């Protein structure tokens, strides 16, 4: 019979008509996201960063700008460089996460938000001051230790710098505020 296929199609639409909608009303409701989601707002732990600039070197676009002072006052103790500028130009960032993977000290993490629209291009550059002040909600992308701790970047507690690392924090043994495990070396 001609038209049977059309009728069959109407059956499908009718069935879906009675279904619960799959979409969510975005600003009011939000769908559940996984903690691995690589979002905006990088999380940077100042005390973990040594200024090695691995992230800047591994960024495919070269959007991370780091200026360090080798005479940061730690050179005698085998310590780190003093980071003077740490800018991430999010206007060109593609959120590939390679900078996070390159970081040997787990100082840089991906963020988890996605609502970073700005009216001006310059405002998309996040500076060291902004990074320092931000609440630390790191994404668990390429951070299995955070995944093991079941960190929830969407509304959970901020992660302290001692908990963010792969192992006990002991790269700068002479620094104050060492996490346990640092004293042995």
């Amino acid at each position, binding site marked *: 019979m001609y*038209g049977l296929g*059309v009728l069959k199609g109407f059956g499908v*639409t009718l069935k*879906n008509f009675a279904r619960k909608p799959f979409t969510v009303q975005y600003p009011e409701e939000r769908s559940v996201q996984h903690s691995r989601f690589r979002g905006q707002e990088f999380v940077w732990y100042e005390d973990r960063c040594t200024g090695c600039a691995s992230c800047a070197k591994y960024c*495919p676009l070269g959007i991370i700008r780091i200026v360090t002072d080798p005479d940061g006052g730690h050179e005698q103790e085998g310590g780190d460089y003093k980071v003077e500028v740490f800018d991430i130009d999010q206007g060109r960032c*593609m959120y*590939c996460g390679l900078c996070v993977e390159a970081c040997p000290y787990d100082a840089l993490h991906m963020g988890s938000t996605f609502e970073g629209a700005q009216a001006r291009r310059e405002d998309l550059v996040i500076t060291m001051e902004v990074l320092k002040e931000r609440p630390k909600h790191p994404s668990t992308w390429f951070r299995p230790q955070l995944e093991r701790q079941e960190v929830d970047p969407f509304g959970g507690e901020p992660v302290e710098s001692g908990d963010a690392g792969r192992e006990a924090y002991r790269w700068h043994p002479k620094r104050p505020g060492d996490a346990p495990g640092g004293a042995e070396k």
Partner: protein
Amino acid sequence: MTTEAQHDTVDMMLNMGPQHPATHGVFRMVLTIDGERVIDVTPHIGYLHRGSEKLCEHESYGQVVTLFDRLDYVANLNNELAFCRAAERLMDIEVPERAQYIRVALCELNRLASHLLFLGTYAIDLGAMTPIMYGFRERERIQNLFESVTGARMMHNYIRIGGVKEDVPPDFVPRARAVLKDVRKGVDEIDRLLTFNEVFLARTKGVGVIDAATAVSCGLTGPSLRASGVAYDVRKDDPYEIYPYLGFEVPVGHDGDCWDRYYVRLLECHQSIHMVTQCLDQMEPGPTMTQRRRIARPPKGEVYVHCENPRGDIGVFVVSDGTDKPYRVKVRPPSFCNLVALRPMMRGAYIADAVAILGSIDIVLGEVDR
């Protein structure tokens, strides 16, 4: 009294695109028409050219993967796999088995997502609004799954040279099974809605016919070629990764018309679901990455590797000069090569069918223009 003027007749040219909503991106066709019939078509491409191949020469091997995400932005993981396989062959790297299973499972899921998008957009091209809603709904489930594994919904950057970046989360297998169950239902819904719908049949049956010999000589690959009756599938004919261990069939069409190209993709959806299920069953715990240096320096040489993309046979040619950056990367993009078949398909068709024919080859302009 009039002088006798010379009246040369010229065929009418009709410009379609680059902003036409039915051209799947910025693609322009110049149709030469005679009445209602298309007698010739000239595709104009390049509106989305970003110079990806040249950009690859300035990035180290690990970074090139991010650029390959952006070629075919509907089937990102399949592209990543193509480049990573090329680099792995260049460096002679053996990939752990678990990584291969994860790769194939995700690639087949991505093929599924890509075909679901095709089923929806093709229906839109023909004037049916409903299937895109169902197609997108099911694709959304797959993308949520991708987000939990790779950290991103589209630009994954997950498949790496020597394996995959991270192991899948512990709840991946049950989640994937639930997604597959839903997607199977969704594919069946689209099947019931479209396949034997009389209006759909009238728009696609016998439209844009291309016979097997012409298709092969045009370099057509993928589902569009298989619709013409040629059972060429890289996964079967030149197996890679763990495809030899998976049981699957290659759906083949008969007439090579638009309906066959649609139906082959619909059947491929079922095959992909079948393959992912097998991957989930066979997956064993183990390492997911080869131990190697982060900055890879392959020896001098060149390599050509091809894989089966949702759109066809993607080939990657990499020349290495011994440094950490490739000397030259050339991509054989399936969409670009499939566009060659546009002219033989469209000659003699009605103007109204031009969109139906273009939609049936399922091009992605990001890959055509690179």
